[in-house]
């Protein structure tokens, strides 16, 4: 029966509103159940874990984004499922009703554009903020980071990549160099990542830290340790034939144990430390061959901003002082 409106004869009996309301209601109920369940039960166990503030930030970001994705997927599945059940061929006689409803519906169109735009822009804004805020992505922030940790005394650990090995220098402890990456618990860490040859990438997955190691470049990544345990370091830039063998292990240990280890290593490695160049943010080795040498770029004047944070020495002093006070 026509109600006199143009095309009203094409309108399905009962109109479209009940269908949309039903679909929305089913989706809302499913989302209200599945979203919180995933966020609360699965989310806390998502990688990369909670060994550091950056890792926790990554895990939380992943939790939020995955929960949002679940809600979107439920919306799509609910729509598909509703259509399959409601308008399956055995329940509809003849061809599906189209007419003007098949040519467009302003409410549906605007709703679709609005909802998808909000979802995409919301995730874009969320992701952008999470990349910037402290302990966000934990990636390399470069030599001039947009934010620095609130603490003035992060432990500086220099990551030196070379084909095909990572070594680490601890400037707060005499600048000794080692293949062991040991970090104190509940401490702000400033990783200063550089390379002696090609481009490498320092990827400590469980720490939520990933920073490219470029020659002549001091790439900075911050994090704060918050859980004891072991982690794996891998090179994540294809850097030559033994790239696959360029991995290492590290540990987060209690502060007292770290200080004990660092002090012992400083003393034990003193014979080789005295052969190393003075600590610098980058080093400029010869580009070709073994006859290189290992020159601090600061000493050659190629890098002028050699002390961007001015806190290299203070961490060790403060930490040692703290240890003495505790003792």
């Amino acid at each position, binding site marked *: 029966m026509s109600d006199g409106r143009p095309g009203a004869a094409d309108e399905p009996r009962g109109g479209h509103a009940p269908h949309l309301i039903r679909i929305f209601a089913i989706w809302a109920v499913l989302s209200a159940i599945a979203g919180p369940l995933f966020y609360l039960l699965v989310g806390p166990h998502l990688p990369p874990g909670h060994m550091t503030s950056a890792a926790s930030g990554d895990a939380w970001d992943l939790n939020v984004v995955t929960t949002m994705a679940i809600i979107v997927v439920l919306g799509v599945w609910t729509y598909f499922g509703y259509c399959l059940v409601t308008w399956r061929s055995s329940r509809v006689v003849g061809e599906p009703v189209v007419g003007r409803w098949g040519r467009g519906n302003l409410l549906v169109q605007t709703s679709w554009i609005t909802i998808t735009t909000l979802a995409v822009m919301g995730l874009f804004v969320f992701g952008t903020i999470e990349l910037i805020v402290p302990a966000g992505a934990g990636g390399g922030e470069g030599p001039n980071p947009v934010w620095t940790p609130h603490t003035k005394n992060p432990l500086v650990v220099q990551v*030196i990549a*070379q*084909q*095909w*090995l990572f*070594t680490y220098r601890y400037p707060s402890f005499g600048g000794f*160099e*080692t*293949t*062991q990456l040991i970090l104190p618990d509940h401490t702000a860490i400033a990783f200063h990542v550089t390379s*002696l*040859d*090609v481009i490498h990438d320092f990827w400590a997955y469980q720490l939520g830290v990933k920073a490219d190691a470029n020659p002549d470049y001091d790439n900075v990544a911050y994090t704060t340790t918050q859980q004891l345990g072991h982690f794996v370091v891998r090179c994540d830039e294809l850097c*030559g*034939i*033994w790239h696959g*063998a360029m*991995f*290492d*292990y590290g540990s987060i240990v209690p502060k007292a144990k770290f200080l004990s280890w660092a002090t012992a*290593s400083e003393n*034990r*490695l003193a*014979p*080789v430390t005295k*052969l*190393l*160049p003075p600590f610098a943010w980058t080093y400029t*080795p*010869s*580009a*070709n*061959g*073994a*006859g*290189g*040498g*290992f020159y601090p770029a600061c000493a050659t004047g190629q890098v002028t901003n050699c002390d961007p944070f001015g806190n290299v020495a203070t961490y060790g002093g403060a930490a040692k002082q703290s240890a003495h006070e505790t003792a």
Partner: protein
Amino acid sequence: MGRTARLGVFFSLLGIAIGLCVFTAMAWIGSAPPTVSFASSQPKGAPVQLHLQTVGAIGTGAHPDWVSYLTQEPDGHWVGTTEWDIPASTVVDVTLDEYDSGSPLRNEYLGLVGAATVGGAPGEGGVIGGLENVNGKAVRVVDGYSGNGIAHTFSVPDLGINVPLPGVDGSSSKFCSEPAPCPTSALHNVITFSFKTPASGVYRWQCFIPCGLSYLYGNGGPMATAGYMAGFIKVVS
């Protein structure tokens, strides 16, 4: 061109392509360095005597100007290889005759015995006693800026082994300039050290000194080719 002719051309080209692939694969397989076995010839439990040479240019083969390691087989014959079968849980006494010239290191840290260690503390484990002997003198750290510098290292990161090899005077009239193996009359350093093999497994070893001159950052060519400055220790039970 008829259909049959077109099919003939297609299958001919396909056959040529397959042949080229097989030839390339076989050539690559055939180019792998031979493996010297110390597992079969060794009395059970007895230390393995591993005798190696490092030379500035191997003088023969596809890359005569490449720097290389050589291995002495149990019968005394020298071969240009870096792959060995060694029994598990066995002490390996290494004697290394170093005939190449040296230089300062790109990273002087690698002058420390045991420096290139994955996971563990440098200098602990790996080389027995944490020392190498250079011409009979026990050494823990080699200064790349003193003497003739460091020519190469023998490094097995997974086993905590890093042995810097002091170089010789490249301008000496006794510098080895003939095809490898170099004679003992040529100028060389004798480096000895020992390590114990773990359980069975395959362990990569390499020189950590970028000695592939004329290659990008010195790590191409011989540094990236098994049989020259890198190889595998196959520990067999």
